């Protein structure tokens, strides 16, 4: 047996490897202050997670990948359930069932892949999707990626994990590492293992488009900052899947770039939310406010990351989203059938609209946590809690403004060369904006010699602090629009949650079985007798 063929060290896995190291180091620094009990257990599982992640990205053997992938599910379970409290263990169970079930899918997909190509390696030869078996194989592997990355319809473990698990765990696994790994495997199979046909491409594109819109609509009405971020972690996966679904070098590169960007800014957002929660003791938007004055660094880094995720130029989220739009418009150009063209155009619409909704929901968070009237007094977090977010916020700016000269070079190496079909010169544009701002500030300095601080102007009415408008109810109007109201109430009842639906079906089935187990001996004996009679009938008739 040759062990050298079992591993792969190409630019793609090395690129992902670098980011796994980065996130592990940053989270370790952060957790040193944040995690107060069971530190040793925590760090052991974090390191094992990092190790298993390296296993996934550097192995090329189907069985090895499955083993490491399965181990990641276990470590996720142990980390979510770190403190053994009731809510966390319930959600850890749910996560483990979803991830475990899709591990089964992965195994099944790999089995079919091996059956069709008769190779144990993912990148040895490319399988053309031309019949049902190869399509099923692709979809089952993709399902495992979706569950890991948190794409609809297997997303339901993320929002609740985000709310109940220890915060560094959320920032480490669902927000960054699981995205890196899930999307890595998707990129790997799209790039090296399969030639996608139209059905496969459009399955990905439609799933991506639906994920973007639905998840962000859910995020819009959340009241808990961590749960809100969890929904955004789902919505952003939609963009990556959209890009990768095009299966062109530009689209895959865009998806990969967006995945890296997402890991950076989402990690930063979660850690900032952790800082806020650590200082104030709550993550409910209703109880927060006016923290900009007390926690300036947290505020600025949160704002940078929030602008990145909403795709405000010149930050990194904009560049990758812009590449995804290009990938889609380029892909649309290569199609000839009208219905398919319309689907791509509508996906482009949903991606652009989703980015607007993202911005809107982050405006809500920024304003209700950091602006407005202070409801709690707090002080800035300690250096160990701030260092990771500062580094991540800087990365947001660097990967945005200097995208072409830094990260895109490595992505080109990993994916192959591609041409941009649009135009965006981030350095020049940022310089112009910066110059304008500096000139503006100088003009302001010179023209406003007379500066006066005064009370808030309310037009003569008394200012009653108790009756202030609540910023977190910004979007109440939206959830009151008749059509959306219905959908929201269904979503609150978890009708769209596959896990909950399956649970309901299983309960119905087990209720039938429960009737049989009434604990009375004659009943069991009757069943045994019927069974034996059946066997006799089959074998001796």
């Amino acid at each position, binding site marked *: 047996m040759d062990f050298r063929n079992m591993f792969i060290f190409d630019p793609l896995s090395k690129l992902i490897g670098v980011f796994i190291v980065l996130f592990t180091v940053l989270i370790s620094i952060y957790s040193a202050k944040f995690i107060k009990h069971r530190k040793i257990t925590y760090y052991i599982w974090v390191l094992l997670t990092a190790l298993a992640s390296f296993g996934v990205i550097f192995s090329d053997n189907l069985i090895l990948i499955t083993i490491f992938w399965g181990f990641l599910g276990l470590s996720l379970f142990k980390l979510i359930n770190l403190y053994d409290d009731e809510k966390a263990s319930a959600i850890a169970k749910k996560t483990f069932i979803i991830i475990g079930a899709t591990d089964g899918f992965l195994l099944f997909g790999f089995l079919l892949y091996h059956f069709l190509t008769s190779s144990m390696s993912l990148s040895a030869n490319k399988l053309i999707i031309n019949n049902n078996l190869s399509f099923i194989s692709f979809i089952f592997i993709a399902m495992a990626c979706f569950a890991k990355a948190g794409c609809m319809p297997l997303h339901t473990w993320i929002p609740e994990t985000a709310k109940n698990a220890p915060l560094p765990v959320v920032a480490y696994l669902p927000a960054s590492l699981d995205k890196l790994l899930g999307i890595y495997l998707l990129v790997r199979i799209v790039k090296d293992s399969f030639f996608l046909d139209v059905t496969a491409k459009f399955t990905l594109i439609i799933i991506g488009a639906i994920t973007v819109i639905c998840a962000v609509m859910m995020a819009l009405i959340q009241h808990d900052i961590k749960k809100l971020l969890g929904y955004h972690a789902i919505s952003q996966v939609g963009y990556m899947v959209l890009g990768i679904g095009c299966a062109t070098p530009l689209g895959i590169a865009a998806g990969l770039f967006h995945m890296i960007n997402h890991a950076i800014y989402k990690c930063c957002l979660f850690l900032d939310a952790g800082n806020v929660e650590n200082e104030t003791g709550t993550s409910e938007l209703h109880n927060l406010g006016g923290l900009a004055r007390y926690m300036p660094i947290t505020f600025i880094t949160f704002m940078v990351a929030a602008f990145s995720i909403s795709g405000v130029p010149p930050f990194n989220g904009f560049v990758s989203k812009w590449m995804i739009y290009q990938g889609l418009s380029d892909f649309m150009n290569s199609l000839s059938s009208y219905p398919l063209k319309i689907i791509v155009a509508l996906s482009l619409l949903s991606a652009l609209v989703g980015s607007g909704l993202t911005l809107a929901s982050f405006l809500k968070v920024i304003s209700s946590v950091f602006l407005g009237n202070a409801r709690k007094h707090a002080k800035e977090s300690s250096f160990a809690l701030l260092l990771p977010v500062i580094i991540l916020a800087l990365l947001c700016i660097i990967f945005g403004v200097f995208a072409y000269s830094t990260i895109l070079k490595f992505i080109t190496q990993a994916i192959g060369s591609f041409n941009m079909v*649009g135009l965006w010169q981030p350095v020049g544009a940022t310089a112009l904006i910066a110059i304008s701002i500096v000139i503006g500030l100088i003009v302001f300095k010179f023209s406003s010699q007379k500066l006066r601080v005064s009370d808030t102007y309310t037009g003569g009415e008394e200012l009653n602090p108790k009756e202030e408008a609540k910023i977190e109810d910004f979007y109440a109007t939206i959830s009151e629009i008749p059509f959306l109201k219905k959908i929201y109430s269904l979503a609150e009842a978890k009708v769209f949650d596959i896990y909950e639906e399956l649970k309901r079906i299983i309960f119905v089935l087990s209720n039938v079985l429960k009737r049989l187990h009434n604990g009375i001996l004659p009943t069991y004996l009757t069943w045994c007798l019927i069974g034996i009679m059946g066997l006799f009938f089959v074998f001796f008739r």
Partner: protein
Amino acid sequence: MLKIVTQYLIFPGIIFSFFVGAMGFWLERKFTARFQYRVGPPWYQNFIDVMKLFLKETIIPRNAAKTLFITSPIINLAAVILVSVMLANNYFLNISFMGDVIVILYLLVIPSLFTILGALSSKNPLALVGAARETKLMLAYEFVFITSLIIAIIKSGNSIMLANITATQILSKPNIASASGIIAFILALFYAQAKLCIVPFDMAEAEQEIMAGTVIEYSGPLLGFYKISKLMLYFSLPLFIISLFIKVHTQSTLLKYLIFFCLYILIIFIMSVIKNINPRMRIKDALGFFWFWLLPLGILGIVLAQFGL
């Protein structure tokens, strides 16, 4: 280098677009005045308005998040300047400057974004109401404009370069000369109306009920920055619409400018008519109008555009 600086600063950059925008706003005021049987302001009114603001003192509310309060109007203006320069360079000099239509779409979000952040940082309850309205309205009009932009992209053979969109129109016919083009043009007009905060979509600044809402706490030079950026938007939004949908090819330069100014005045006139025959909408009605009437219309336009209609 000198050329770029001239392009950026004078023509067709900052000074040109500010001047045209100020004249456009004046035209709008004049039209409105005539609708109401008034005389209306003289042509230099907007310039002296802005000038006066830079001579006044600045008042900062005591509880405001000061840095954000001061920088918001400046960032707002910086983004608007960049957009205006990009659009004007493309239209008048045929130069692709800094970015494509998606970049412009995203840059155009920055002014609204920092208007809202500036309002929120002032901690004024009325500004808060204005900001909440502006956010919701932004959701409404941006989506509608996105559909209109996608129609223009499809019409130009799926290119997102502004230069290609105008070039395709010159080669064949203007985008507006088709069913989907007309739909997209109408949607873009409503977008401009709402983006510029003109009645019936001026809930965010509603003077009569929340006293200018988002900008209530601003005064002096800071308000001046807001005014300038608004005046420049009066230039760049109609220009964006014209270059997306009604680019006409002409040989002579004089005719080119003449066509632009005619179209520009026409768009200002249409907006002013809409303004004067409608009352202010409630925010919920506006959302319903944009989402359940205009958005499906835009999707219909996308479908039509894919079939080449």
